[in-house]
């Protein structure tokens, strides 16, 4: 009689048949995982907000640790850091916002001239492509009426945008609150993270978090250095080349500024040619895609039916 020898059975019971208790245990595990995934999907915005807050806290933590090593209490160090950040933000707003509103005002003043220029441009296209004559209204006033007919939609859009802006400001403030609380007392959060990891993975989890914090800090340092160097050099070059005091807002008005003449441009010389190419391509693609293909056709059909009446 031939006997088949089984291999050495392991101590974890991998060779033994599945028992009723194992089945129940696996059902419970699968159920808990499914529940966890469902909850995570339901609160995904909250998870994203906290992920961003923890990322910002990781970025700011080396600064707080540095101040703490210099003898400041942790709470005071966090307060000092937040005040410094807000001061920098206020300085940027102070330099960028006034020219922004000034240019918006200029843009509003230029709209009638731009409207005539656009209408002349369309007339030029009609001469080149006569088939467009059927699709376009005959007078500038008709086109203006069509546009003003969309004012309700624009107002609705502006209202929704304002509500979204208020919501965004509220969420940003809550995110700041989470960052402050995390920075003031980070140890319980880190302890909970390390506790929840199974013991055999704790050391890799600890090292992963340390490396992530290191990488995020390095990334933030790079972004700050790059931003300061680019902004300062652009502003300096702009002032030097055009003697324009508004050059601080070099990156703020890429689109709006394209409507202005070059002697009043906020963008410095090296960017202005690329800016014009970009504006030209983008304007044409936007106009052809959204206006000619989608919007203009039903509008013109309604206008033609109105004219026939």
């Amino acid at each position, binding site marked *: 009689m031939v006997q088949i020898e089984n291999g050495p059975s392991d101590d974890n019971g991998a060779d033994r048949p599945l028992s009723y208790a194992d089945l129940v245990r696996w059902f419970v595990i699968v159920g808990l995982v499914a529940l966890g995934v469902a*909850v995570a999907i*339901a*609160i995904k*915005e*909250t998870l994203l*907000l*906290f992920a961003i807050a923890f990322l910002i806290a990781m970025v700011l*933590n*080396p600064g707080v*640790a*540095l101040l*703490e*090593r210099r003898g400041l209490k942790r709470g005071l160090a966090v307060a000092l850091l937040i005040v410094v950040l807000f001061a920098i933000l206020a300085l940027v707003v102070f330099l960028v916002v006034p020219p922004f509103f000034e240019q918006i005002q200029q843009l509003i003043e230029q709209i009638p001239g731009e409207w005539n220029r656009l209408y002349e441009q369309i007339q030029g296209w009609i001469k080149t492509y006569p088939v467009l004559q059927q699709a376009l209204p005959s007078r500038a006033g008709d086109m203006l009426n069509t546009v003003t007919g969309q004012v309700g939609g624009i107002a609705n859009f502006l209202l929704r945008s304002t509500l979204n802006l208020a919501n965004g400001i509220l969420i940003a403030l*809550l995110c700041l*609150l*989470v960052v402050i*609380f*995390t920075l003031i*007392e*980070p*140890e*319980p*959060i*880190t*302890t909970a993270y*390390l*506790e*929840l990891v*199974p*013991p055999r993975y*704790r050391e890799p989890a*600890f090292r992963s*978090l*340390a*490396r992530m*914090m*290191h990488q995020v800090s390095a990334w933030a340092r790079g972004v700050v250095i790059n931003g300061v160097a680019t902004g300062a050099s652009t502003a300096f070059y702009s002032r030097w080349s055009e003697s324009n005091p508004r050059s601080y807002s070099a990156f703020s008005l890429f689109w709006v500024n394209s409507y202005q003449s070059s002697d009043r441009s906020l963008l410095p010389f090296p960017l202005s040619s690329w800016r014009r190419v970009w504006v030209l391509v983008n304007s044409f693609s936007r106009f052809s895609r959204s206006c000619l293909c989608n919007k203009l056709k039903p509008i013109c059909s309604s206008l033609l039916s109105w004219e026939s009446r």
Partner: protein
Amino acid sequence: MKLHAVTIIFFTFAMSSLFGFLGLILVVPAAAMVKILISEFYLRPRRIWSESVAGQARELARGQIKIE
């Protein structure tokens, strides 16, 4: 039992997303219950104590880790 401020804020968001206004009322009890359940059913059977990882957490918070 100590509940961290970030825990309370997280549960405020999560409970309001899941259960609306009723969830907002139950934020603190829910946070405490979850903490107790994790402690009793996950940490205690595995003999995981906060003191064993507190040192590592302190090192991370103070930025004292040298990356090789």
